[in-house]
């Protein structure tokens, strides 16, 4: 108590822990819910859930949905929806398989080509929305039907196409290589631990730097005790995840892709004018337009990004299955939308974060994985996931109203 008072009188500008908690209750709540769900499944499965192997699998399974959820977040933020992404991912996965297997394209040409196709497909889908005000629901549903037809068309002659390219298959199945340190920590993936350590150092370093800059501006900063507590918590989290992953095969390429996507999109949305413009268009399109922001340009960019992420998702999924199938992508859009809503995105527009949606995806994937381990029937699984989705949204609604 004494020390708390002291810091206050010294700087005159401190935020109390309660203020921070109150301001961010929605985000913290989903994070807490995720932890509770994980603890619950760890107990009910005698620790199998939290085992290195299961967590590693969970992340790899989640990858191709999570990248879609990132794009879907922005789509919903600008008050639209994209129902075409599942089949677009399926089609682009199949296209990759055909290009490599039948046409003999090198993998390094296929991947960029497919990404460009994704961007173009997204922007094409957006055209009626951006130019004529056609509801995205209709435009993207139509696009989804077209992509589904295209997928069936290209796989018609062959059915499932097996992919043999080792580099391509590695994307969804392999892990980053390890370094050999004789006798040091046997059975652990050392590079993963080193990366975790680097992550911890980096986050501490950037937090300190940001605090210094803020102080140089004479701005309000959290009290020193709180600051340290935050750093300890973040470090512990990164360290723990790295430790768990190192117990199996380490960091997978799927996780690398996911982290890159989250990093880039988090940066764009929170730090750049483009990000501001996206949230402004979502918050009030008319005001945004009158502030010199082109709403139709933002619509193209966001749908283009969604198309790009759909191509990534398609590549990751085809790679994971070693093949392109006629049903690839089925229902991906529903999972991505659910992840975004569980993560706190508002359909009214302008609200929702990339990290929130990733937490949402983790919640949904943990439920699936945990219930699978418990041997719960798929019918019940659907009911539970539906209930969690509606609960999350109801909670979000109530906390928002109380603010």
């Amino acid at each position: 108590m004494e020390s708390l008072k002291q810091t206050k009188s010294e700087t005159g500008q401190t935020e109390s822990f309660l203020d921070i908690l109150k301001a961010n209750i929605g985000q913290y709540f989903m994070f807490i819910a995720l932890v509770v769900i994980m603890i619950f499944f760890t107990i009910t499965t005698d620790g199998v859930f939290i085992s290195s192997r299961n967590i590693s699998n969970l992340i790899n399974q989640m990858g191709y949905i999570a990248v879609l959820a990132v794009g879907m977040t922005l789509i919903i933020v600008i008050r639209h929806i994209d129902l075409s992404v599942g089949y677009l991912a399926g089609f682009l996965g199949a296209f990759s398989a055909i290009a490599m297997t039948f046409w003999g394209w090198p993998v390094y040409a296929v991947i960029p080509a497919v990404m460009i196709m994704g961007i173009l497909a997204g922007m094409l889908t957006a055209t009626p929305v951006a130019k004529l005000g056609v509801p995205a629901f209709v435009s993207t549903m139509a696009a989804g039907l077209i992509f589904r037809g295209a997928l069936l068309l290209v796989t018609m002659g062959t059915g499932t196409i097996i992919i043999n390219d080792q580099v391509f298959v590695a994307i969804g199945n392999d892990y980053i290589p390890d370094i050999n340190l004789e006798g040091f920590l046997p059975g652990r993936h050392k590079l993963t631990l080193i990366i975790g350590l680097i992550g911890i150092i980096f986050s501490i370093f950037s937090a300190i730097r940001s605090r210094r800059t803020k102080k140089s501006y004479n701005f309000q900063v959290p009290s020193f005790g709180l600051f340290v507590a935050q750093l300890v918590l973040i470090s512990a989290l990164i360290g723990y995840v790295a430790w768990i992953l190192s117990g199996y095969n380490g960091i997978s390429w799927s996780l690398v892709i996911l982290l890159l996507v989250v990093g880039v999109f988090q940066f764009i949305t929170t730090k750049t004018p483009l990000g501001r413009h996206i949230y402004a268009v979502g918050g009030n399109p008319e005001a945004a337009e009158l502030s010199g922001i082109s709403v139709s340009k933002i619509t193209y960019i966001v749908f283009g990004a969604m198309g790009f992420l759909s191509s990534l998702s398609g590549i990751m999924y085809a790679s994971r299955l070693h093949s392109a199938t006629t049903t690839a992508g089925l229902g991906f859009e529903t999972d991505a939308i659910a992840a975004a809503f569980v993560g706190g995105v508002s359909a009214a527009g302008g609200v929702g974060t990339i990290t929130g949606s990733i937490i949402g995806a983790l919640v949904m994937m943990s439920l699936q994985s945990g219930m699978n381990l418990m041997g719960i029937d798929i019918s019940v699984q659907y009911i539970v996931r539906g209930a969690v989705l509606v609960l999350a949204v109801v909670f979000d609604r109530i906390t928002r109203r109380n603010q």
Partner: protein
Amino acid sequence: METPILEMKSITKEFPGVKALDNVTFSVRRGEIHCLVGENGAGKSTLMKVLSGVHPYGTYSGEIFIEGELQKFNGIRDSERAGIAIIYQELALIPELSVYENIFLGNEVTNGVVIDSNESISQAVDILKKVGLDVNPLTKIKNLGVGKQQLIEIAKALKKKVKILILDEPTAALNETDSDNLLRLIRGLKEQGVTCILISHKLREVLEIADTITVLRDGKTVTTLDVHKDKVNEPILIKHMVGRSIENVFPKREKVKVGKELLRLENWSAYSYALGRDILKNVNISVHAGEIVGIAGLMGSGRTELAKSIFGNPDHYRLSGKVFINGVEQKFRSPHDAIKSSMAYVTEDRKGNGLILIEDVKQNISLANLKEITVGGVINENEEILVANKYCSELNIKTPTVQQKVRNLSGGNQQKVSLGKWLFVKPGIMILDEPTRGIDVGAKYEIYTIMNSLVEQGMSIIMISSELPEILGMSDRIYVMSAGKIKGEMPVEDASQESIMALAVDY
């Protein structure tokens, strides 16, 4: 003396921060046409909303008597049951439904369960005859003109056995022939014993049709005139409408020498595809550095449309004519282009299209000029806070921190955030659309002071306002608009509330 059909006694209605109606008394005799006139914001619409139950019993103080009986309306349904029907300026018809379906909407004629179309149609034909409208009841509403739609609204009201019919600016959107038709119909209804309350800005038609005229001003009843006994004419009405003196609510400004011309419009016209008509006709205006140019006019006279059409035309009107900024002709394709040419537009409807309410003060202030605080593609959020803090202190924005969401601020502070946002763009020409609407006197004074210091620094300000004292107290030069045209231009020294109002009501 017989009991009036309607008596509203000592009605007071407050909104947060504003007294919209202050002890208003309003009495209507059976079978008369009673006109309600007053400036924008005088309280006419609020009074009618109290009467029709939109503002339910308990949210206002005072009493309403209909045929001598005290009424406590909890909603529109209650007032309808008492025989009151109100027809708003924005018509409440469903465009995709047919004429007869609209007439019976909410009161469908059924034989038990199923709608009896034949019976409805035959009843509709009778009702349409009453309003002198010869249309097929199966026509869809969207295929009829505004004038006929208005008559159908009235038909809909008549079907409900209305005793008191309230019309809120029924002729505002009508051409002359349709207006004449409507007025003739209202006279016809009077002969059938329907009492009419008519809100209108068009004084000529008021004088033509009214038995009694009540003038409201600033939420108070100024006078009630009997057209058949008292001496009533347009100048008298205008005097009553604007009759307050301009007190010391406007800060003094040193008149600076007017600088060079910053904005000029030549034969500027606009056609709205959405409305299907011309909204601006051959507007010629000129604005110089260091002056405040007031644009007066009534609602719907085309002032906001003028502002938007200059400011990059976001509503995509079809434009003709020329805009010159700093003597160079410009063709703006979007607000973005206009901002680049050093224009700013503080909108009339700050909640609707001015601010992003769910975002905080600093994000709103920086939105139109993010590039100023962006280094290497990244927004410097610390600089952003500094900028926001600067405008908060300069404009005296009362907010705990700049991280406060804008929706939690009062109207006056929101308006100042809006102003701050556009000042950060560092414009040469600023259009202020109703800069003080819905904010209290203190905040108004602050905004006026800011405007004065801006023009002293050489900015030019175009101020659109419905408040005549504001126009007279702040402008150097005044343009008066009516029906999309500039009806007159005058230096403030030659202007009076009466002369402006006379031009504004000249259709």
